């Protein structure tokens, strides 16, 4: 059970990172980016490409490089695909379809570029273990948890101590007033989107050494979306909490009930929690 709990915690952190991306984009731009899971996939492949070019690259530099690459990609994605739609006041249905379409294009594009077969990060980290008595845990777990803690502290610092963070919060709370105060709402949206993409890519690089990288791994985004909803859509700490809840629920549920029901358990957890608390665990309600 301890092993399942820790596994759920680590995978939950991955869900949480992607869920933060969902919430950030929603707060900044008012749209649900269903391509966020595929950004995770893209980040994982960026990491694989870096390791293909420089096999001895330290893992943390791979993480940084993949995140920066996804950030640049996100910049152009937001600037040339999403912003025009938002500016034209496109309806939510259109925006949902747009991001779904982007996700499909990313997924198929990844298949064309990197092939249909799964690939692995051929690094020692993949097989390193940390032992606590009789229990051995994969080293990537610790990277994930430590990485998420560092990222959350960084985000906390950015949002509370930097001008960029303050503008993001201002735009998220009241874009009209922010505009009147001289803040560029469009630049803030771009910044939020870029950060969300970087977080998604980081999640992909954290996930890759545990399993493998494939063009269809963007499906993780579905559980990450559930995590964002469970935590309270648009609430960043809630996204992390939601991720942990979903991750632990499916891991523990797999032990207690059965592995073949893990996916069902994850979403059943979401349904039950939303029935109890419709705004999410930490949500304060979302404006229509």
């Amino acid at each position, binding site marked *: 059970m301890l092993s399942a709990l820790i596994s759920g915690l680590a995978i939950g952190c991955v869900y949480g990172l992607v869920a933060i991306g969902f919430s950030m984009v929603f707060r900044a731009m008012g749209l649900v980016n269903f391509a966020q899971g595929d950004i995770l996939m893209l980040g994982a492949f960026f990491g694989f490409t870096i390791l293909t070019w420089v096999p001895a690259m330290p893992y943390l530099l791979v993480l940084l490089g993949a995140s920066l690459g996804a950030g640049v990609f996100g910049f152009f994605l937001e600037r040339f695909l999403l912003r025009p739609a938002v500016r034209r006041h496109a309806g939510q249905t259109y925006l949902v379809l747009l991001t779904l379409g982007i996700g499909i294009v990313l997924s198929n594009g990844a298949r064309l570029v990197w092939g249909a077969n*799964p690939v692995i990060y051929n690094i020692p980290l993949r097989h390193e273990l940390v032992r606590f008595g009789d229990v051995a845990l*994969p080293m990537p777990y610790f990277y994930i948890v430590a990485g998420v803690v560092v990222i959350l502290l960084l985000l906390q610092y950015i949002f509370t101590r930097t001008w960029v963070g303050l503008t993001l919060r201002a735009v998220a709370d009241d874009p009209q007033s922010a505009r009147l105060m001289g803040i560029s709402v469009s630049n803030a949206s771009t910044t939020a989107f870029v950060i969300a993409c970087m977080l998604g890519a980081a999640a992909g690089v954290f996930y890759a050494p545990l399993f493998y990288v494939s063009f269809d791994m963007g499906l993780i985004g579905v559980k990450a979306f559930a995590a964002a909803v469970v935590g309270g859509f648009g609430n960043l700490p809630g996204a992390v909490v939601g991720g942990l809840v979903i991750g632990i629920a499916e891991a523990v549920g797999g032990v207690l009930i059965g*592995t073949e029901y893990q*996916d069902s358990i994850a979403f059943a957890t979401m349904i039950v929690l939303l029935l109890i608390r419709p705004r999410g665990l930490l949500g304060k309600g979302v404006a229509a």
Partner: protein
Amino acid sequence: MKTKAGNLVRAIVGIATAAGLTSAFAQIPIGLVGPMSGAAAVYGTEPLAGARFALDELTAAGNAVARQIKLIPADSTANPGLAAQAAERMAISDNVVAIIGGMTSAETQAMVEVTRKAGIVQLSPLAQDNALTQQKNPWFFRIAQNADAFGSKTAQWAADKLNAKRVYVLSRNDNYGQSNSDAFIAGLKAKGLMPVGQAAYEPTAKDFRPVLQKVADAKPDLVAIMGFYTDAGLIVKQMSEMQIKTQIYANTAPGLPQFAEIAGPAANGVYGALYYFAGSIDTEAGTRFVGAWKAKYKRAPSQYEGMGYDSMRLLVHALGTLPDPAKATPEQLRTAIAKVNGFAGATGTISLTPSGDAERPLPIVKLGTEGLVLDRLVQ
């Protein structure tokens, strides 16, 4: 004004056109449906490569039937719905006389509904689900052994060779996994053994630690994994991380190099049973195929390439027994295939049973540091 030269040109053009039309009409369209993209792509792309290799080889050797065959591939992406659509299109638009495929059991089942209704021969190189040949469908055949045969032979081997007494069975929760699991367990029971546990997992699962904890608690001396190479690879890796030390049998997964990549060092020592193992068939057809393949690709053929190769060769052989292969009806081809007995395939001697199943040898292998090694060829 007509000239002699003009008449000659017109005559030549006319003859050439007639010859072109004749050769176009003389084509024997054969479809091949399987996953060519996605995580299961290897189950489609490799049989296709094998089938094409067989056609090229037979054509180069002057085989008149092979020269007329037009191979029409389609990508199912391992989606049963898409596989059925491809079969339907081939039946209606391409007028195929036969379809090689599907490759996974799920897509094959979806296609069977189409080919049976259309009255077209369907020959699967890889699908193992028992149910496929239990439907009294005269149009479906396969050159792979069904799950029962696979399971009983491997269970017998596990009990005799590995001396397994406490077996835990993990299986994908789909046609492939469940049929293989049921057959393996039936084989164990036939040897007087009961599994100490069994569990199914979702095909999309990647974290198997919850179920592996149950495996660890059961203390098996053999874990049998009935899944694709991706899940089997992750299971073996995670078993190693959880310090679960036991013998492992991973069905056909060890036959793929990607299995060892995913599993890492933990793959060393894992057993598998393959559709075919290059070098295990010590016949003229077997050695010729491996030699020709190595000459072209500088490596031995994989199990899926071998099965695709023999599927095409068997179809060509069956067509060759007909008086006019180019005008063969699906019914004639069906009757010819049903009579196949002792076909000297490159992957082994193949005989088809009245239900459409295949009797053929089963190679059991072990993955070592230098690659796969034949452990036993079970007849």
